[in-house]
Every structure is written in structure tokens, then in C-alpha cells.
């Protein structure tokens, strides 16, 4: 099979370095991965092509890159599964500075992981033998522990594209691994720490990380689970928590959404800190009203809303 690899390249040592594209057409076997093809290019066509790899078996996490615009491991992605009109586009991972060609600087990634204090912080006296945890409490963490720190999730995170301060999917998934660990004693401290700006409420729920993670870690699902834990732990004072609670309360009572009341309740009606945001929302509301776009002031209510409320009462009662 013939394939043309369209590679996004960058050489920092060239005069006036800037990214450029280069194509290589080569004959590959059906079983070739993208990494196999890149190594073939490096060995037979251009020894200056920089690509980082080690295990070639989706374990070491070295070869995360963008393949046809989406992050993945070069060693786990078969050419045959991504080839389109004889071509595959390869770029360095996103949201990280490029060192050379397909090699990115992982420092921002590790800085974020370190920021969540990724180690067990037990409380109380040290046990004589070892820390014991019930198997059931640990089993569901196996999925998160499967993270190989490749940075694919970080590469395609839509929030990091606009705000580099966001802790990001990998670090927050790691954070969840300790928040949900029954041996960890710092749960509340951790939740308070992750609850701030750039933390767990800044995720936009776009699911890019869930889609591209090569190990099924589903970072966003862990972020959502931490939001639930933050609310349950009594951390109500964020716009995110208020938004989720107001949304749930409105659906509980009306059966449907009521956008007009959702906005002020998310900002917090008596919250001085958010007065600016609330005032700024007013012209947006007026503009919407002038265009006949304002949601109904008297909210739509479901005629069968008592059935919805019953479901809420049952589920919340059990919590």
C-alpha cells in the first residue's frame, strides 16, 4: 500500500525558524502503524526527522501526536485505519511547545500533574503493616490508573486552546485518582484546591479527552465525578456548583429548563463578587429581547412535572 505522510515540521536550528510541511510517499505494509511509517522515513529518507518513541506498544506514552488533526499514539494507530485518499496528516501534539518536528516539550504537562499533588496523603497513625482498602473501592480506579501520561488529552483539550492556566484533563484525572482513593485523607483539602480558577469547573465538557485517550481513562468523566463530590462535600460557592444546582432545581420543579432564572442563580443572586458579571449579562438580555429571542419570562412547565419531581425525590433521598 502506498501512503503519503503530510508532516508538520519545525527545526529550531534553521535560520528564522518557522513551521513548515513536508510530504513523504512510501510503500507500507497493511500492518504498519503511523509510527512504523515515521521510523521508516527517518531511517531511509530523512534522518533529521525528529520523533519520540520507545516501547512501540502503547505503554510508554512517548509518541502522542496529532493524526489527521486528532491526538493519538503513533504506535497504536494503524495507517489503514486513518488513510484518506492515500494520505495521512501528522502534526506534533497540540497545546504544548514544539521542540523539533513531532517532539513537544512536556514540561507544561508535568507542571500541571505536579500541581495536583499526585501522591497519597494518608491521615492518622501509620498502620503496622500496610494501608488496606476494600477491593470494591479500588476497582473503579483501575481505569484512571491506566493513564500512561502521553499527553494526548492535553493536546486536544479545547479549554487549553484558549487558556493555558487550566489544569487540564490528565492532571485532573490524576487528582480524581486520589480524591476517590479510600486511603487518602486529604479529600476535602484537595477538592477545595481543585475548585478554584483553572480547576475542575473550567472544563467545558467537550469530550475531546474522552475521545482521544488511548487507554480509556475518560478524564472528563473523572472531572464530572469530582464536581459531584465537590457539591456533596458542601463546596457550593462557585459559579459551577451554583449553575449545576440551579439547573437541577429548575428541572426538578418545572420538568424543563428556564434560562431566564438560570443565569442569575448561577451567578448567585446576592453574590457581590459576581455583580459585574450579572450587570454585564443585562445588555445581552436586552439585545436578545429586542430580537424576540428572550426565553419566556413565564417559564414553560411540564404538565406531568410531578412525575419528574418524584424521580428527583427518590434519587436524592437515597444519596
Amino acid at each position, binding site marked *: 500500500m502506498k501512503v503519503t505522510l503530510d508532516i508538520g515540521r519545525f527545526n529550531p536550528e534553521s535560520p528564522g525558524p518557522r513551521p513548515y510541511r513536508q510530504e513523504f510517499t512510501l510503500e507500507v505494509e497493511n500492518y504498519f502503524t503511523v509510527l512504523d511509517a515515521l521510523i521508516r522515513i527517518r531511517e531511509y529518507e530523512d534522518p533529521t526527522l525528529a520523533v519520540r518513541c520507545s516501547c512501540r506498544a502503547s505503554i510508554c506514552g512517548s509518541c502522542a501526536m496529532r493524526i489527521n488533526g486528532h491526538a493519538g499514539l503513533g504506535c497504536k494507530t494503524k495507517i489503514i485505519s486513518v488513510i484518506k485518499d492515500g494520505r495521512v496528516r501528522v502534526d506534533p501534539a497540540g497545546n504544548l511547545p514544539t521542540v523539533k518536528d513531532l517532539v513537544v516539550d512536556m514540561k507544561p504537562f508535568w507542571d500541571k500533574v505536579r500541581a495536583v499533588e499526585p501522591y497519597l496523603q494518608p491521615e492518622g497513625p501509620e498502620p503496622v503493616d500496610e494501608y488496606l482498602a476494600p477491593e470494591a473501592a479500588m476497582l473503579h480506579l483501575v481505569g484512571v490508573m491506566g493513564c500512561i501520561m502521553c499527553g494526548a488529552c492535553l493536546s486536544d483539550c479545547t479549554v487549553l486552546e484558549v487558556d493555558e492556566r487550566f489544569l487540564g484533563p490528565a492532571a485532573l484525572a490524576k487528582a480524581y485518582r486520589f480524591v476517590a482513593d479510600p486511603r487518602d485523607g486529604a479529600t476535602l483539602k484537595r477538592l477545595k484546591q481543585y475548585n478554584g480558577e483553572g480547576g475542575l469547573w473550567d472544563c*467545558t465538557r467537550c469530550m475531546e479527552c474522552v475521545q482521544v485517550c488511548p487507554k480509556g481513562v475518560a478524564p472528563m468523566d473523572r472531572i464530572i465525578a469530582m464536581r459531584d463530590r465537590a457539591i456533596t462535600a458542601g463546596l457550593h460557592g462557585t459559579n459551577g456548583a451554583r449553575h449545576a444546582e440551579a*439547573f*437541577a432545581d429548575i428541572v426538578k420543579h418545572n420538568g424543563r429548563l428556564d434560562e431566564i432564572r438560570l443565569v442569575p442563580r448561577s451567578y448567585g443572586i446576592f453574590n457581590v463578587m459576581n455583580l459585574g458579571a450579572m450587570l454585564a449579562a443585562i445588555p445581552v438580555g436586552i439585545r436578545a429581547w429586542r430580537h424576540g429571542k428572550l426565553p419566556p419570562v413565564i417559564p414553560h412547565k411540564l404538565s406531568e412535572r410531578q412525575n419528574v419531581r418524584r424521580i428527583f425525590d427518590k434519587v436524592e433521598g437515597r444519596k
Partner: protein
Amino acid sequence: MKVAFYPGCVARGGCPELYPAAVKVGERLGIELDELTGAACTGAGVLQEKDLRLGDALNARTFAMAEQKGLPIMTICSTCQGVMSQANKRLKDDPAYLAEINELLKEEGLQYRGTTVIKHLLWIMVEDIGVANVKKQFTRSLKDLRVAPFYGCYIVRPSWALGFEEHPERQHSLEDLIEAVGATAVEYEGKTRCCGLPILMINEKNAVAMVAKHTSTAQGLGANAMVTPCPLCHLNLDGYQPKAAKQSGIAIHMPILHLPQLIGLAMGFSPKEMGLQRHIVSTKEVEEAVAGRAPVGAGRP
């Protein structure tokens, strides 16, 4: 075909122009709409962050209602579609969980057996009706439009909950319809990215930065309109575009169309019938492109 119509909250709330446009287009396509008037909000992913089971229970209730009617559910919102698809997968994959959720519905006399199919109007047009048949209803060619598709996260990810393996055509369904109305589809990276709406009230600066990024990129590539199957994306991309232009310092002007509006315009409906006057960003260029192509009302059945 007949469907259990689930319009969702925003199509009659923040985007009141969507509901009538979708109904008009649906009727013209011969889709018989049996609206699920008793169905609740899907939770939109927000309720799910408070309690996943709550969302799953509300959605199972909706699925059971459609199952009773023996009809597939038709959505007109990427978020509704995605949230429902994910819930349906969880319920179908785990019979014990389904039984547990059914316990919550028992008192209302409902039970979900796990057979309901959920499809966005976008997919119904491409897969069930077929692009060629949709095209038969068109009376004007919108060939002056260069349209950037904007899918909305929930209708593309995670792909395994949305049937992309069985239906690979879903990956380019919007482009197929853009080409069908005679317009040119503009290819850009942002088409499957996030509009930012979910964090609008949490981190407005970031949410608005996303609007600026995608609309300005599409504009730079020569797009003169954007089309989305998601009213939540529309809320942000249209409603917050003035703020996005101000925040980014870029002069952005990108009319955002709901998918049924684009289809409806090609069908011969007037911009007013499609509710374009209700948009925040002026749709003047779109209206001009429409006016130049076939008189309004021509070819109406």
C-alpha cells in the same frame, strides 16, 4: 416516516426561532411529528454533574414514552442527541442498571425495555430520507454561500456512543447537506470543537474566546455563514459574537444558521418564515444570497 419529536428546551427557550423552522422543514420532508409533550429536559450534561442517575432516569422516562408509541425519537439539538445517546448506551449495556432505573419509573406506569432509537434530524435527512430525496424539495440554490459547518461536541463525541462505526456517513453529514443546498462547505479545524457555552456562566472569558476563535477562523477562510445542528452552540456563537469581537479585537461578522433554517431557505421558505430576524448577528448577506436565487414562494407545493 413518523417520529416521536423531542424538540428540547432551548428550541423554545433561548432559540425560539428553531422550533417553528424545524417543524416546517420536517413537515415538508414528510416527517410526521408526534411530539413528546410530557418528556423532561435531558439534563444537558449539567444535571449529570450533580447526579448521573438523575439524568439517566429522566432520559429513560423519555425513551419509555417513545417505546410505548413504537417510534424512534427525533431530536433537533446536538446536546440532547448526545446526552440521550450516552444515557441509552449505559442503559442498554447494563441490564441490572436498567432494572434499577426502571424502579424509579414504575410509579408512573412506565418501563423502558431498551429498544428506542434516537436520531437527530441531521441524521434522519442523510440516512433515512437520503440527501437526494431531501434535494428534491429544494427550489433554490444557495450557491453564493460559503458555509462553515459547526457540529457541536455532543453529536460527534464520544463516537462509540453515537453509532459512528455503523454510520460512517455521520462524520460528514453537515458538509453533505451544505453541498446539497448548492453552497460550498468550508473546511476548518473548529468544526468539531467546542463553542464554549457550557462554561459561559463559569468562565465567560474562555467561553467567549472559543466563539472568537472558531468564527474568526471560518471568516478568514472565506466563510460567509456558519450552520449548526445545536441550538446551544447557536446561543453562544450568535448571542456572544459581539462580545467575542470586542474581546478578541477582531472584526468578526459571521451569521450563524440553525440547520433547519439552511434547509428551509433552500426549500423556498422566506428568511422571515425561518426566523432569521431573531438572530443577534445580522443575516443580511444570507438573505441577499437567498433573494438572488429564485423568487420567494416559487415551486411551493
